[in-house]
C-alpha cells in the first residue's frame, strides 16, 4: 500500500500537477469560520497586491505615496496574518494570485486597482457582517472594515481630490446616495470579482 501511494504521488509530481491549484480551497459559510476565511481570502489578495506595489513602486509615485503604500502593505499583511492565526487549523490554504492584467508600472495603473480592491473590501465586510454569529468576530470585522474605508478614501482622494466617499460611483455595489450609505455586497457578488485576480479555485458551499 505504501508503495502504491508513493507511486501515485510520484506520478502526480511527474505531471507537474500541484494539488492546491487543481482542487482549490473551499469556503464553507455554515459558520463563522467560513466568513473569516472569506475575509482571509480577500486579505491575502490585498496583501499580495500591496507587497508587489511596495517592492517596486511606480516611478511617478511621490515620496508620501511610497510611504503610505508601505503602511497599507503592512496593514493588509497584518490582517492576513491575524486571520490566519485566529482561524488556526480551520484556515484555508494560501491562494495563488494572478495579477497579469494589472499595470504595476504606472501610478494610474496601481491606483485604479487599489481603489477597486479597497472599495470591494469595504463592500465585502459590510455585506458579510450580518452573517457573523459571534459578537467577538463581528467586532473584529468592524475593526478591520473602517481601516479599509480609510484606505479607500485616501486612494480615492489621490485619484480625484474630494472623491473619498463618492457614493454615486458605488451604487452598483449597494451604496445608497439618498441614505449616504456605503457599498455592501454579499459574498456571491464579491467572489467572482475577486476571482479575476486569483488563480486558485475558490469553492463556496452553504452560502
Amino acid at each position: 500500500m505504501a508503495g502504491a501511494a508513493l507511486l501515485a504521488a510520484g506520478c502526480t509530481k511527474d505531471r507537474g500537477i500541484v494539488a492546491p491549484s487543481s482542487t482549490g480551497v473551499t469556503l464553507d459559510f455554515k459558520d463563522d469560520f467560513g466568513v473569516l476565511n472569506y475575509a482571509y481570502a480577500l486579505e491575502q489578495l490585498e496583501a499580495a497586491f500591496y507587497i508587489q506595489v511596495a517592492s517596486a513602486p511606480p516611478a511617478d509615485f511621490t515620496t508620501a505615496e511610497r510611504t503610505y503604500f508601505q503602511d497599507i502593505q503592512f496593514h493588509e499583511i497584518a490582517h492576513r496574518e491575524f486571520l490566519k492565526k485566529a482561524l488556526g487549523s480551520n484556515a484555508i490554504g494560501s491562494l495563488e494570485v494572478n495579477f497579469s492584467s494589472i499595470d504595476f508600472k504606472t501610478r494610474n495603473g496601481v491606483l485604479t486597482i487599489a481603489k477597486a480592491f479597497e472599495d470591494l473590501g469595504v463592500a465585502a465586510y459590510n455585506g458579510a457582517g450580518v452573517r457573523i454569529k459571534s459578537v467577538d468576530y463581528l467586532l473584529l470585522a468592524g475593526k478591520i472594515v473602517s481601516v479599509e474605508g480609510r484606505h479607500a478614501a485616501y486612494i480615492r482622494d489621490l485619484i480625484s481630490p474630494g472623491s473619498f466617499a463618492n457614493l454615486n460611483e458605488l451604487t452598483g455595489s449597494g451604496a445608497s446616495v439618498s441614505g449616504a450609505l456605503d457599498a455592501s455586497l454579499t459574498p456571491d457578488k464579491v467572489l467572482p470579482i475577486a476571482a479575476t485576480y486569483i488563480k486558485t479555485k475558490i469553492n463556496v458551499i452553504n452560502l
Partner: protein
Amino acid sequence: MNIVNILEEIEKVDGEIYERLNPRRAAMKSFANMGKKISLAAMPLAMGSMFQKAYGQTTPSVVTDVLNFALALEYLEYHFYNHALVAAPSLTFTAQQRTEITVIRDHEMAHVNLLKGALGASARAEITYAMTDYTAGNTFPTVYSDYVTFLKVALGFEDTGVRAYKGQAGNLLGNPVLTTALQIHSVEARHAAHIRTMLNAAGATGLKPWITIGPGGIGNDTGVAAVNAVYAGEELTTQAGINIAGIATGVTAAAAAECFDEPLAKANVAVIANLFLKDGFKLS
C-alpha cells in the same frame, strides 16, 4: 430582501396585514410613497418601523436605543458642518474645501433623515444648533474662525463616530439593521480619513489617513490633548489575544495599532458628545 414577497407571505397568515399597516386602507399607496422617500438600501430600517406599526410590537429596545444614540451623534455632526458652511463668515474655505465639507455635511443630514425615518414615533427629540456649543466650553474658541481648529474638531467628531458605531455593532448582531449601521460606519471612516488628508494639506504634522500611535505611545495622534478621550485605546496592538506587532516582518507597533480601529463604549462616547451640548441637552 424582496419586501413585496414578505408582505405576501404575511398576508397568507394575516389577511389584514395591509390594513394593519395603514388603517385608512391606503396601505399600498403609503407603501409606494415610502419607497420614494426611503432608498432600497434603507429598507431593513424602514421594515422595522412598518412592522412596529402593524403589530404594535416594539422593535427590541436595544435596537431603538442604538438608533437613537446614532441619531444624536448625527445631529451633532450635521449642525457642526452646517454652521461652518452657512453661518461662520470668519471661517474661510477655498471652493474645493467648501465642496468637500458640503459633501460631508450632506451625508450627515442623510444619516439624520434615514435614522429619523426608521425610528418613526420612537425617534428622540431633535437636537438643534441652539442646543450645541462647538467651542466645548471655550476649549476650541476659534473653531469657527480658524480652519485648522475647525478641521481638528471635525476629526474628533468623525473618529468618535467611527468608534461609536463600532461599539454598538454587537447590539445589532444578526439583525438586518446591522448592515445599514455598518454602511454608515464605513462612510464615517471615509470622512475621517479625508479630514486627516485635509489637515495634512493645511500643514498639520503627524497625521495619517489612519489613526497611528501618538507621541508618548498614546492613542491620540492629533497633538490636541483635549481630545485624548476620543482616542483612548486606539494604541492597542493586540487583537483576540494575538500580538499584531511583529506578526510578520515589518509590522511595527505603529502599523499594528493603525490596522485595527477600536470601538468606544456608549458611556464614553456620551462624555465626548456632551462636551459639545449645552446644559439641559446632554446625553444620558
